[in-house]
């Protein structure tokens, strides 16, 4: 099948289709009837051309006029633009014509509007909330793609305030070539966002990517050697270095990197990917620049060289964990399903409401990457167009939210010490009742005298 912008392609497709299709011209007369209509009605459709297909229009006793009138659209099409109708033409001679669901679409405006009618199975007359929800999400996705073409990595998608803030920052970062840092939890898609920013802010500029925690000064030199060579070749050339887990990079390697940044000036750009943003980045930096220890929210001490902090603080992008922006999860998941379905990875086309309910409650510890792999699994394992909860990975579909009330009320206790204390209480009561006679007290409790003495001794110690 050849694709093209000429009407011939469409004509060929319609001709080869056996679906009944017809067109009603602006004057209300039938201007086209496909071969499928002939097969359905059992008449020569040439005879129907130029007959009025207007319901309620004056008709003759000619059975063909009657048939033409039954092919008319339902009332209100002009206002609504589309309508579905079960068309039931009158029978010709001895042949019985079965009813057919027909979708009418009004194309064009005013007096030149043409009505197209397509026969088939249409089950969209009753409003299905799931489908209308899916349509709404699709609209939001299309809008996002339209508005954010430049930064359209799926990880930046979302309607929440934090997603909007993130996109604003990314747009700024795309417009200016400067050092910047991306702060986010594991699996938040920071690297793909950083690469997108790099492509927009410094097109064709060479970039080297290094793993922060693995670096020492010598290995760092070896890893970024190609870009250092580019910078050394010409005083005009520029390059970028992207450091994964910058906050985990050994301090000696950080100092070496800051030395390189100083020696090459703005020609060498640093892109740092860090775990969630330390408070220090948004507070005045009144600390010892020689040895900075940052306190993160998790109370884990991190070490960042002051010069590195100064560079990365120039422009920061914060990505919130998925668990704190559940509103964005359906949109992200739908976008991921769309891309997997478009790549023909499976038949799963949309997520059912029950599936969406399950994924919004799951905490997504590995954030966007985990969601991506879960949607890939779901699309591949789905057997029909709607993805059900059973198509999700086991960890997601078996996740159950703990009962907060019970968890909060449960205090840590030692069962052994509680039992020992209760036992001692009973022994003391028995001894009192028996005027301190240990043998009698032991008998009344149904234990041996030696056991009673042992318990009393243990308690006194």
């Amino acid at each position, binding site marked *: 099948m050849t694709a093209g912008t000429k009407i011939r392609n469409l004509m060929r497709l319609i001709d080869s289709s056996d679906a009944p299709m017809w067109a009603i011209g602006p004057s209300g007369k039938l201007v086209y009837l496909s071969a499928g209509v002939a097969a359905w009605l059992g008449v020569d459709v040439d005879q129907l051309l130029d007959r009025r297909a207007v319901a309620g229009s004056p008709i003759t006793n000619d059975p063909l006029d009657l048939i033409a009138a039954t092919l008319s659209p339902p009332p209100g099409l002009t206002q609504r633009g589309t309508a579905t109708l079960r068309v039931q033409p009158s029978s010709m001679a001895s042949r019985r014509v079965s009813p057919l669901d027909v979708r009418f679409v009004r194309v064009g405006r005013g007096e030149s509007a043409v009505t197209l009618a397509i026969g088939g199975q249409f089950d969209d007359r009753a409003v299905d909330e799931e489908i209308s929800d899916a349509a709404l999400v699709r609209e939001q996705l299309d809008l996002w793609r339209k508005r954010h073409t430049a930064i359209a990595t799926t990880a930046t998608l979302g309607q929440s305030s934090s997603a909007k803030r993130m996109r604003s920052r990314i747009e700024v970062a795309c417009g200016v070539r400067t050092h910047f840092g991306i702060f986010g939890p594991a699996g938040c898609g920071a690297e793909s966002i950083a690469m997108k920013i790099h492509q927009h802010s410094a097109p064709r500029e060479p970039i080297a990517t290094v793993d922060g925690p693995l670096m020492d000064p010598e290995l760092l030199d070896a890893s970024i050697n190609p870009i250092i060579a580019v910078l050394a070749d010409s005083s005009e050339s520029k390059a970028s270095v992207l450091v994964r887990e910058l906050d985990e990079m050994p301090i000696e390697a950080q100092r070496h990197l800051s030395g390189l940044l100083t020696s090459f000036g703005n020609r060498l750009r640093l892109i740092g990917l860090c775990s969630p943003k330390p408070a220090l980045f948004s507070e005045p930096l009144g600390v010892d620049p020689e040895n900075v220890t940052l306190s993160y929210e998790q109370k884990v001490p991190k070490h960042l060289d002051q010069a590195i902090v100064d560079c990365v603080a120039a422009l920061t992008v914060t990505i919130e964990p998925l668990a704190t922006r559940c509103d964005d999860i359906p949109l992200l998941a739908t976008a991921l399903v769309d891309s997997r379905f478009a790549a023909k990875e499976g038949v799963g086309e949309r997520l059912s409401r029950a599936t969406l309910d399950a994924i919004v*409650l799951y905490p997504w510890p590995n954030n966007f990457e985990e969601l991506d792999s879960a949607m890939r699994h779901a699309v591949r394992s789905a057997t029909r167009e709607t993805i059900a909860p059973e198509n999700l990975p086991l960890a997601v579909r078996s996740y*159950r939210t703990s009962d907060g009330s019970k968890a909060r009320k449960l205090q840590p206790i030692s069962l052994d010490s509680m039992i020992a204390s209760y036992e001692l209480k009973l022994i003391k009561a028995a001894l009192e009742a028996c005027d301190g006679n240990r043998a009698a007290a032991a008998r009344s409790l149904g234990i041996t005298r030696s056991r009673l003495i042992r318990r009393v001794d243990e308690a006194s110690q």
Partner: protein
Amino acid sequence: MKEIVTSLSLKSREVVWIVCESGNRWQNAVRHFGTEGLEDSVDFLNFSCDSIDMLKQVQNHAGKKHATVIVLWEITPKTIAAKCRVIAECRLRYPSVIQISGIARIPNRYQAMLSELGITVALKRPESLQRVARIINQVLQASKIHP
């Protein structure tokens, strides 16, 4: 949302979520989002019951001095008529109780009616509860710091 803020008890030490639904969709959401940002010193209770028991349960908890009671109604076309009556009654008898609805397949014109009867926020999807619960808990937290 402003209504939620003003109707919260300023010295709340107990947050009670009562969910009235046929399944467990909204109760799962309350369990998940209801405790977000809530300090351990605040008691969090959530349970599910039917609309007949609802007023009794509300009475039990709304009478407590330092409790914030939040009722979440699941409203579907089948249950809307019966629940509207209880929602209105609850609003009249216990004005301090925050009433939230989780709606499904309800036309927009009825959603406006629900707010007149006493529903403060109408949620269409469980994920929307996160934002509401966060605001409630932030206000509770703030009232604890500045009673």
